């Protein structure tokens, strides 16, 4: 029932200058909920928040507030208020007048205004500051005033755009607790934007993980942490080791060259999967009895509460392990992962798939280039085919000019014994590559695909 949702976002899309910033966004917010939009910078989370606030009009889709579409309503008529990243207090007004700004516009009687402003000042622990100029306040104090200025209007939803990003760590932790307390006391729905996964896990009832304009996963902090639905979420939230694996049958998965019991079912038999292991879930011991596999400690760093170690397993994979005890680098250890702690995910893709078109008996056109390859018999010029290229058959070259295609390293994921890269070509196509070489995000690369690496088949319609 849509009626239970205070905010319901349906098929929202937005492009800037031909680049899709948000792509078919759908989610809802329950009344009184604390929802966080989480994602790396440039994922579209702020654009999404600004559309809810009304500063940007969506290209497509609807934003429902209590069942009514508010897409066409200007920001000053929406019963929502925003806390901006850089506070955006009015420098020519003192603290009191900043907070009273909205109430004065609504023509709330002065007596009531005073009562409400004082109540808000108390709520954000700024009682004695009402006559102070906002320039004389510290960053944390300014943020409190900004929160009070928004909440004093009793908005139906409070929108917060990375409100704590400019504060130092200690201050941020304190403010997180206070925000949570304010949320509990006021009972107002919060929509919170952040790139800080720890902040999202601490504060939220529900987290919406965004990347490249698309929703990756929606769930409670525990769900998102324990059961990430794809390798992006697993990598972005918390520390993890992501590995290639094979689901042998129900409750049995193979990875790092060993077979493990797990709790996942329904993947089918011998299906390639991604496996996520959290470093705190790996048991490490200085004897081999009772262990599933062995390894050698490569490095050990003290992290305050625990030690973080990288262990090279007997089968040559690198695994991150966290434990309260330190194990000397070089020592032989036994390792164990319990069935409950193995998170198995469907692979989004097992090879690159491109559209191809036959140009002659020995050439095809693919990714806007001509490639030499074996065209299946019976194909005529102009036929549409599907080309598949394995991840490890794509060659990356140091210089953009050396390759048939040029691109940029867009995202990288360490998979225990190799890197899985996402390359964004200059034409805007994605190519996924497995490599042992070390690349950095943003590296410019040339791309080539060897003769014989392209497998062609008839497209299904």
């Amino acid at each position, binding site marked *: 029932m849509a009626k239970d949702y205070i905010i319901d976002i349906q098929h929202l899309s937005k492009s800037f200058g031909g680049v899709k910033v948000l792509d078919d966004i759908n989610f809802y917010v329950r009344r009184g909920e604390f929802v966080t939009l989480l994602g790396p910078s440039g994922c579209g989370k702020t654009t999404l928040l600004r559309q809810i606030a009304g*500063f940007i009009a969506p290209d497509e889709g609807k934003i429902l507030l209590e069942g009514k579409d508010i897409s066409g309503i200007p920001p*000053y008529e929406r019963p929502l208020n925003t806390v901006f990243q*850089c506070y*955006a207090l*009015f420098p020519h007004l003192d603290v009191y007048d900043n907070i009273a*700004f*909205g109430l004065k516009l609504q023509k709330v009687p002065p007596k009531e205004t005073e009562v409400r402003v004082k109540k808000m000042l108390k709520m954000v622990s700024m009682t004695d500051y009402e006559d102070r100029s906002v*320039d004389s306040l510290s960053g944390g104090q300014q943020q409190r005033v900004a929160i009070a200025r928004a909440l004093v209007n009793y908005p139906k939803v409070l929108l917060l755009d990375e409100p704590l990003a400019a504060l130092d760590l200690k201050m941020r932790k304190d403010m997180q607790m206070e925000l949570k307390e304010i949320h509990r006391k006021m009972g107002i729905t919060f929509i919170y934007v952040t790139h800080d996964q720890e902040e999202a896990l601490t504060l939220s009832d529900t987290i919406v993980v965004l990347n490249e304009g698309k929703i990756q996963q929606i769930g409670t902090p525990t769900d998102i942490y324990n059961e990430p639905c794809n390798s992006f979420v697993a990598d972005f939230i918390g520390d993890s080791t992501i590995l290639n694996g094979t689901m042998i049958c129900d409750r049995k998965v193979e990875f790092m060259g060993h077979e493990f019991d797990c709790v996942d079912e329904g993947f089918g038999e011998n299906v390639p999967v991604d496996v996520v292991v959290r470093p705190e879930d790996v048991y490490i011991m200085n004897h081999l009895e009772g262990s599933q596999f062995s390894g050698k400690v490569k490095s050990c760093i003290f992290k305050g509460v625990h030690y973080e170690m990288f262990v090279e397993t007997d089968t040559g994979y690198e695994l991150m392990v966290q434990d309260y005890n330190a194990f000397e680098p070089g020592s032989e250890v036994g390792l164990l992962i319990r069935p409950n702690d193995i998170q198995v995910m469907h692979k989004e893709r097992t090879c690159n798939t491109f559209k191809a078109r036959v140009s002659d008996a020995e050439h095809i056109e693919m990714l806007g280039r001509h490639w030499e390859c074996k065209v299946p018999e019976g194909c005529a010029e102009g036929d549409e085919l599907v080309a598949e290229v394995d991840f490890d058959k794509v060659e990356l070259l140091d210089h953009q000019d050396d390759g048939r295609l040029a691109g940029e390293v867009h995202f990288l994921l360490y998979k225990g014994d190799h890197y899985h890269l996402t390359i964004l070509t200059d034409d805007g196509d994605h190519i996924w590559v497995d490599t042992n070489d070390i690349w950095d995000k943003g590296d410019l690369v040339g791309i080539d695909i060897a003769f014989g690496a392209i497998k062609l088949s008839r497209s299904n319609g």
Partner: protein
Amino acid sequence: MKKVLAKAYLYFLLALLYAPLLFIAIFSFTESRVLGSWTGFSTKLYANLFTGGMNGGSALTSAVINTILIALIAAAVSTLLGTVAAIGIHNLKGRKKQTMQLLNNIPMINPDIITGVSLFLLFVFLKVSQGYATVVLAHITFCTPYVVLSVLPKLSQMNPNIYEAALDLGATPAKALWKVLVPELRPGMVSGFILAFTMSLDDFAVTFFTRGTIGLDTLSTYIYADARKGGLTPELRPLMTLIFLIVLILLIVINVRQEKTKKKYSK
């Protein structure tokens, strides 16, 4: 030694700059008709100035009033136009912004005489009868770019979110402009106004070409005509001294204000 030389040079320069002004100021306190001869201390010229007891007194008074009125109207209107234009330019991006800033700067570099003649031709072409209105229009034309130039830096100093914050708190765009943007831009608008006022005050070329033939005189055209008749009216000496003093005071006020805001921001 080096220091002494440097200082001497500085004082020499200052003396060169201020000698004419000082000269006029000193000789405003004597009654002599010819500039340069001292006939004893007197404040009679000042008295004449205020009572109008001199040759062609009413013409000078009306020229002063015209000058001030034209300057006030031109400064007020160009402050309004310039501020709106500055907000528009500020919100442009990339190439368009650069082009608009360039187009704004050209009239300021353009020699007054060319501005004056082109406006004269334009008014003739449009068959607008020239007089008070055309002078005011012409002054607004050349003052507005100066206002744009003094408001633009205030806009880039401003937190870009505060306009949106006002909208978010329920202010319509007009109210947000009035309650948030204008108070933020006020220092820039005030300096723009003062700049426009002084530009209009001392303009000769543009006024000369756009005042038509109805006998409208501002201070500068009056003095020009007066000098051509042979010999300056002696009462102009105290008048110029007073104008100089007023400008001096205005300058000091602007500087003190700037110091204050600087202190406020550096705190």
